[in-house]
Each structure stands twice: as C-alpha cells, then as structure tokens.
C-alpha cells in the first residue's frame, strides 16, 4: 500500500506504524458524570467496519506526523489522507 502523505507525497506504508480507529482522537471528557462508561467504550469498543475505515497511522520512519487515513478494509484502497492535527483541530481540539 502507498500512503499519499499530505506533505511528503506518496510513501510506502512500511514507513508507518498503525494505531487503529481514528475515533481514538475523540477522547471523552474525564469530568463527565458517566466518564467511566465513556472511557470503556472509547478504549475497548470498535465499529470495525468492512469497507471505509478512518484510521490513525504514525509516520515513524519519516517526519513522525500522525495521519488520518481513510482506507477500504475490503480492498485495501486508500481513499483519503489527512494530517491528524488538522482533523483534531477541526473537531475543536487544541484550540
């Protein structure tokens, strides 16, 4: 698989390590009343779709940026690549 890095261009996926579902960006509010339940779901439960999957890849052998890669888990086709930084900011993180 070739991951089209937003800054560096096409890179072999062997340069990256894989973390998992991009929902891991959405860390729950630890002060919420049901924080324990929210953290359980956040940490342990996954949608695990067959098809489009947004996931976190770390460019460990490159510029050490975190990417959100949208990839089809049935065909391995990569549909979109974004900087995780941009995704997190768009969701109101790190204002």
């Amino acid at each position, binding site marked *: *698989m070739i991951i089209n890095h937003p800054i560096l261009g096409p890179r072999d*996926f*062997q340069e990256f*390590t*894989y*973390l*998992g*579902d991009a929902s891991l960006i959405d860390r729950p509010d630890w002060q919420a009343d049901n924080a324990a339940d929210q953290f*359980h*779901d956040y*940490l*342990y*439960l*996954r*949608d*695990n*779709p*067959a098809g489009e*999957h947004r*996931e976190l890849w770390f460019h460990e052998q490159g510029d050490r940026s975190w990417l959100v890669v949208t*990839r089809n*888990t*049935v*065909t*391995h086709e990569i549909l979109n690549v974004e900087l995780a930084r941009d995704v997190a900011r768009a969701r109101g993180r790190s204002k």
Partner: protein
Amino acid sequence: MRYSGLKVIKEALTGHKGWRPTWRDPEPKKSYDVVIIGGGGHGLATAYYLAKNHNITNVAVIEKGWIGGGNVGRNTTIIRSNYLLDGNEPFYELSLKLWEGLEQDFNYNAMVSQRGILNLVHTDAQRDAARRRGNAMILNGSDAELLDTDGVRAMYPFLNFNDARFPIKGGLLHRRGGTVRHDAVAWGYARGADLRGVDIIQNCEVTGFKIENGKCLGVETTKGFIGANKVASCVAGSSSRVMEKAGMRLPIESHVLQAFVSEGLKPVLDGVITFGAGHFYCSQSDKGGLVFGGDLDMYNSYAQRGNLPVVEDVMEGGMALIPALGRVRMLRSWGGIMDMSMDGSPFIDKTHIDGLYFNGGWCYGGFKATPASGWCYAHLLATDTPHKVATAYRLDRFRRGCMIDEKGQGAQPNLH
C-alpha cells in the same frame, strides 16, 4: 456416509460411482431450538456437542458459503495447551484432551498428530519466562519440559545455534502439542452433527436479527426467516459485521494473518518449532510442504489476503532460524481474517439480548480451541451457565477490569 477399507477397494474398481454426500443438504425449517450462525469448526463442533452431550438435536447451522471455508481451512493446523494465565490454560487443556480422543469420538480420520511443539528461547529472560509458563502449564495438567541448548541440538541439529544476535539458549518443549488435518475437523464434526439430526444449511447468509422487547426471536436470512429459541453467533473474523446487525459494538478488530507453504520436501522437520526472537514458526505437513506462519499485517482488514512486507518478514525470520531454508521455494500463501480482541483472549458468553449468544474473539488461536469452544458453547446454550473452564470469557470483562492479557499489551489488538 461411512467409510471402510473394503468400500475404498470396491469404489476404486467400479469407477467411484457409489460415494454419497457426507451430510444432507436440507432446506431450513420454520424454526429450531438453536440456530448456530457460522459453519466453521467452532459452529459445527457446537452443534455436534449440543446433540451428543445435551441431546438437543433440533438445531440448524447456517453458513453463508460452504462449511469449513473460513478460518478452519486457513490456519497452520497447530494444536497446543501452553498458555500461562488461569483464565486460559484450563480451557486449552480441556481442548487438547478432547483433541486426543476426537477421532475415536466422531469416528473420522482427522490425522491428529502429537508431534510436539518447541518454543525456542534466546535470552536468559526468555528462559525465565519459559520456565514460569511451563510451571503454569504443569499446574493445570498439561506437560512442559525445559530443554537446554544441547537438548534442542539433539532434536534439531540444523538450527542456527550460534547466531550473533539470537543464539539458541534452549526451548520449552510441549510434547502433547502437534498438528491436525484441519479440513477433516470441520467434516468430521459436520458428519457427526448431521447423523444426529442437525440441519447444516449452506449458502445461507444472515441478513438481520428479529429482536422484540429485548428478546431475539430468530434470524433473517437469504433463505427467509428462521425462528429460534436461541441464536448462537459463531463467526470469528466477521463477528463485528454480524453482531452489528443486532446493534452491538464489540471489543474486537478484524486483522489479516498470512500463512505460507513451501514445495514438498522429504521429511526434515518432525515437530513444530517457533522462533523466540522473531515472528516465525514452522512445521512440515504430511504431504511434505513446510508450513510457515508469522505476524499479523497490523492494520484492520477483511481482505483475506495480505501484503508483501509480511511475506518478507516471515522469510527473514525463517532464514535467521533455519539457514537451510534458503534453497526452498515457497509455493503458496494465503490470509485469514482474525477477530483480534482487546486483550488477546476470546469470548463465549450470553449477550444483553435474551436468546442471543456470542462466541468469537479467537485472535489467531481459534483452531486449537475448536473442540473446547464447541464443548463450552454447547454447555452455555444448553444450561445458560458458562462451563467451568470458560467462566473468564465474558463480554463485560473489560468493564470489570478482568482482562486475560497473556502478553500484557493492553487494548491494542494488533500487538497481541
């Protein structure tokens, strides 16, 4: 369908026209006591033990493709009982004991071969860990023997003992471990279940569950609605896809694991060996091909095929351990989809929906678990209480903090 030496000779002389299907091909009835989703090893074993141990024979196994076409036909055929933790080892020991009597039990040749598994160690720390694991195995009724370098050399003189980075310091030998003809396991269980009245319905995919007032009443399928008092999902690899239809999210990711087989060779390797310093293990099939396995491809996948980097990684591991492999040609590789759970251990449990049961999360250890998985799942379905060796395999164990994490990796499925 029964087999005998006489029948083989007779059929050979008469053009093989007398063989009949080994199991029936029935249309689904309107309803059953138990509907098992998934005609793999675990589903068929569950049906077999429901009929045999609990006398529940009004059972259907529904399978979207053909039986035994999933992971029971895609593994590296190894059976073993060499786990460390209390939640696991009694279960896998039961499984190995069932393997030992399986062929006599279902009267089918599954080629169970207890040729021994040797886990090599390369450092002092690994030797300590192997000793601890061996003690845990013995405490649970399994067998383990710690070998030093000379002990390993006597068994496998062709290994690379003096590698500069990973010298072989010894190994943990599990003599009762071995290999099994994997497809025959599915066929043997299928025939045994079919003979006891279980309907095996192939080419029948579940498209939804009928759930009313918190009770599961049956499944919608491509062959229509099938009612059931109890619905038992048993589709490891696709668990998230099936249970999503019942509105459940699972502590599981699906990952691809590749395996490889070489051209046929004369007998060179009479047991199973695992490399302790890299992701590589190897045995030799009865046809002569060397069967290799390695690590996951690391990313979520439902593709049943992998990528070349893991092929390279596994072959490098093989070359590091057995330099003589350099002249062997690889013949085939394939990939299977694993239910990778959040702690590396499986589930055999009721769900929060009345009448809906779940079996899955087997990671890459599902094949060896087949008999005990069926045994314990049948026990749960028949009695509504978990079997005593499967009490830890609960879906809510993460909420309760009772993970069974053999490798201590935490909630990162691709590292288990």
